[in-house]
């Protein structure tokens, strides 16, 4: 392995480590946020979009499917939660009202 190869390898490894550091921080913050679990789906879409977009060059070649799968799973989770909420809006409202009354009755 020549010097140029070692330099390229160092940059690639560092790039992935920077990505892991960013992901760790964002997920750490997200663990304090609770929007019915949709925050994780949003982050999956955002990270996938960052990985898959063509700018700045170079474009992602390996693990492109991973990015697409992450985006689809994140979107699917959001769609499912919104659908369940929409379909059960009356029941959820009743449960929330009951909870509020229970809280006020304490």
């Amino acid at each position: 392995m020549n010097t140029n190869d070692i330099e390229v390898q160092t940059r690639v490894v560092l790039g992935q480590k920077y990505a892991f550091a960013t992901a760790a921080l964002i997920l750490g913050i997200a663990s304090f946020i609770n929007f019915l679990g949709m925050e994780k789906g949003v982050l999956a879409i955002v990270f996938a979009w960052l990985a898959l977009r063509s700018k700045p060059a170079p474009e992602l070649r390996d693990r492109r499917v991973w990015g697409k799968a992450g985006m689809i799973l994140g979107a699917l989770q959001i769609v499912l939660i919104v659908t369940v909420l929409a379909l059960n809006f009356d029941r959820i409202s009743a449960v929330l009202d009951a909870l509020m009354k229970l809280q006020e009755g304490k």
Partner: protein
Amino acid sequence: MSEPTCQIVIMELMATGDGRPPSVPIEVINAHLASCAACREEARELEGLGGLLDAQRRQIPSDDLWPMIAPRLKSKKAAAGEKTTLYYFILFGASLALYKLLELIPERRIDVAFKLIPIIIAVSLFAFLKENPFKINPRLGADTE
């Protein structure tokens, strides 16, 4: 011109060896050297000494110390920056922990705006640090290398 003495010939050889013009014609010196074995030997030794001295080179001091200093300065600056950032993140973590404790209070009213507090804190921190975690930075790490 009279025959030069051995001493004069040696002096002349030393002078010409130093690059000075000879005061005695070179033919006269050569004629003396041809007839005097002691002067020939002396001339050979002078030549050897001259060659040895010519082989010496003056050491040129390298005053450009910047290439050695610059990376050390950069790494020190980066370490100081990391330390400052760490304090901000500790403060940030403490704020989030406080938020979580407030969230766990049972008498608290359910409020959607309250749920936005960690996002506001995080956005404020990144704005203060002038960093965007969702931006690909091609120069990241280049300054610390």
